[in-house]
């Protein structure tokens, strides 16, 4: 599965520009899904099973990135963020544009200051010396470039958020030989700019219940406080985050299934941030939702770290949840 994670995190597909990653995922799941379609916003929707409880499982394909706002006379590229891009994570980093151009991020005035400049005071140097020889133009899109790193139990890459969720969903779909439910694996678009793809795909699918598979933060490095989730202690079952309260019935269901199968898990109470589950919860007449989280250090940096055991246990938990008939009071039938 590490190979799959490597493959997925090597793709450059910021929000709204998911063509490349969609193509890769589509090829990975083609043989395992009963039906595959792409909707108007570019969400990739794979159905498995027919006729049971309708479950939507969302993992977002997009990643945070940068968009060109201006190329100046000397060929330096000014940019704005796509999604939650933290200025602290940028200087000295490398980026790759969807058109293949590469560059490094510099600061106005150089690094000899303790002030952290905003994005407006940074630029991408693509090696051009004038506007005319710059291969980038206003509106062009880039993402972080940083090589995949296998540290054994821990794995590091750009865009673990949320290619790791995509990997868990792909692996779950492959492992799930059959299901008593009607499961829709949705590889969503534009999560990082406001859970936009999940909103329209959930409307189209109209599921009985659903959950997202996404990364969550971490509380186990120096100076981190008030967050009881650590790498290596299992996937986290979300109870709340900054945008959503998981349906308690979903939380209970997930916990009871994890305990029954002796899958390690953690209880997640996240104060900021949210996932596709928020958008799913609020479409149409409302949908009971939850989230299976993969703990991830250094989220929204070019080097996001996950624990490989957590990933494998997330697959176990996901397949366990989806295999047997989901017969809950809220199953919508």
């Amino acid at each position, binding site marked *: 599965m590490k190979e799959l994670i490597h493959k997925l995190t090597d793709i450059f597909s910021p*929000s*709204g*520009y998911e*063509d490349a990653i*969609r193509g890769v995922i589509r090829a990975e799941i083609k043989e395992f899904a009963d039906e595959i379609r*792409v*909707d*108007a*916003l*570019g*969400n990739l929707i794979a159905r498995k099973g027919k006729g049971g409880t309708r479950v939507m499982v969302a993992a977002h394909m997009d990643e945070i990135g940068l*968009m*060109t*706002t*201006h190329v*100046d*006379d000397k060929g330096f590229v*000014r940019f*704005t963020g*796509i999604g939650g891009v933290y200025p602290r994570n940028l200087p000295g980093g490398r980026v790759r544009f969807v058109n293949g151009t590469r560059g490094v991020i510099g600061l106005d005035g150089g690094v000899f200051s303790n002030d952290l400049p905003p994005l*407006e005071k940074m630029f991408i140097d693509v090696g051009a010396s004038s506007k005319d020889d710059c291969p980038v*133009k*206003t*509106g062009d899109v880039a993402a972080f470039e940083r090589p995949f790193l296998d540290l054994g139990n821990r794995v590091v890459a750009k865009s673990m958020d949320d290619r790791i969720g995509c990997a868990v969903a792909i692996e779950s779909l492959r492992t799930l030989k059959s299901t008593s439910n009607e499961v829709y694996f949705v590889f969503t678009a*534009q999560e990082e*700019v406001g859970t*936009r*793809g999940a*909103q*329209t*795909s959930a*409307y*189209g699918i109209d599921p009985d219940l659903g959950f997202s598979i996404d990364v969550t933060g971490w509380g186990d490095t120096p100076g981190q406080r008030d967050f009881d989730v650590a790498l290596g202690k299992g996937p986290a079952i979300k109870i709340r985050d900054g945008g959503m309260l998981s349906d308690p019935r979903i939380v209970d269901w997930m916990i009871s299934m994890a305990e029954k199968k002796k899958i390690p898990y953690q209880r997640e109470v996240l104060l900021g941030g949210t996932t596709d589950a928020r958008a799913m919860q609020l479409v149409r007449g409302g949908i009971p939702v939850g989230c299976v989280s993969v703990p991830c250090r250094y989220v929204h940096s070019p080097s996001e770290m996950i624990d490989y055991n957590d990933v494998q246990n997330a697959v176990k938990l996901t397949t366990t949840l989806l295999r047997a008939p989901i017969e809950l009071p809220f199953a919508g039938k």
Partner: protein
Amino acid sequence: MPNKTPTISAPQFKLLEKLCRAVGVSGGEGEVRKIVLDEIKSSVDEVKVDALGNVLATKKGRGAKRLRVMLDAHMDEVGFMLVADDGEGLYRFKIIGGIDPRNLAGKQVVVGKEHFPGVIGAKPIHHTTPEERKKPLAEDALRIDLGPESKIKVGERGTFAPNFQRVGPSLMSKALDNRLGIATLIEFLKVSYPNVDLCAAFTVQEEIGLRGAKVAAQYFRPDLAIVIDATPANDLPMQFEGENIFYNTKLGLGPALYVSNSSAIDDPRLVCFIQDIAQKAKIPYQIRQPGGGGTNAGGIQRTVVGVPVVSISVPHRYTHSPISVARIDDWKNMPALLHAAISQITPALLKR
């Protein structure tokens, strides 16, 4: 092929002037709506006014496999609502939409259905101290002065006084945002496009949160949507040292095509398509700098099962102020570009 080309000439300038002189502050778009209905009724297949006040008109094509193309332009403009009567014809007010309070003092306004004239007054220079003059006057410190015989009631809306004029290559008026778009969209309904069903949405309440467009898109359920609006040009050189890198758009470079803003990432397929069309037809255009701001694209994109969107705007200086400035050529190139795009659009464009 379409039966004619939408163009901007004398009748359109007259229509734009009429639209700009109308008052249509968000939630009170009736005056603009009436002009729109009169203009389009003889040229569309169906028209209705929905519960929120959007004008929703359909003009069907004739060919097979027609795309449903929604064209949106918002009818409303920024302005004020009177919130308290202080007596003697003086009223407290609240801004509707985004107006910089520094643009308020000393301006002529009109209030109510009859365009009752008023003034937003300020203490004269004779009675202010140098310290006072350094600070901008806040909304709360200002009053709309309608005189003692106005009969205007709390809750009525107003905006900056009509002031449309053509000056050389320029248009100057309040509410160019978005009467330029309304005038453009009206012209499209006079043309028949065999390849598409045109779904024209003249929408309400854009300035206060893209509200009308959301319900309009739910009604039409289009295959794609093009949002026609006006966008700020922040291209004055004297504001900056060195190269201006935050201009948003510049006057005179043509219609501004959006790539991304706070409300939506424009569909890359539509952005590429329109750029290709513009380059082939040699119609000037510019890319509006990605960044903040919002258009009805954000309201439309996430309705129902999702809609591919793109926004195109006429650049204009001094947006949301008592008077803004646009170039006639930028406006003329807007229908030219949209016409070229719409007449060549096919379902293959949306294939994945």
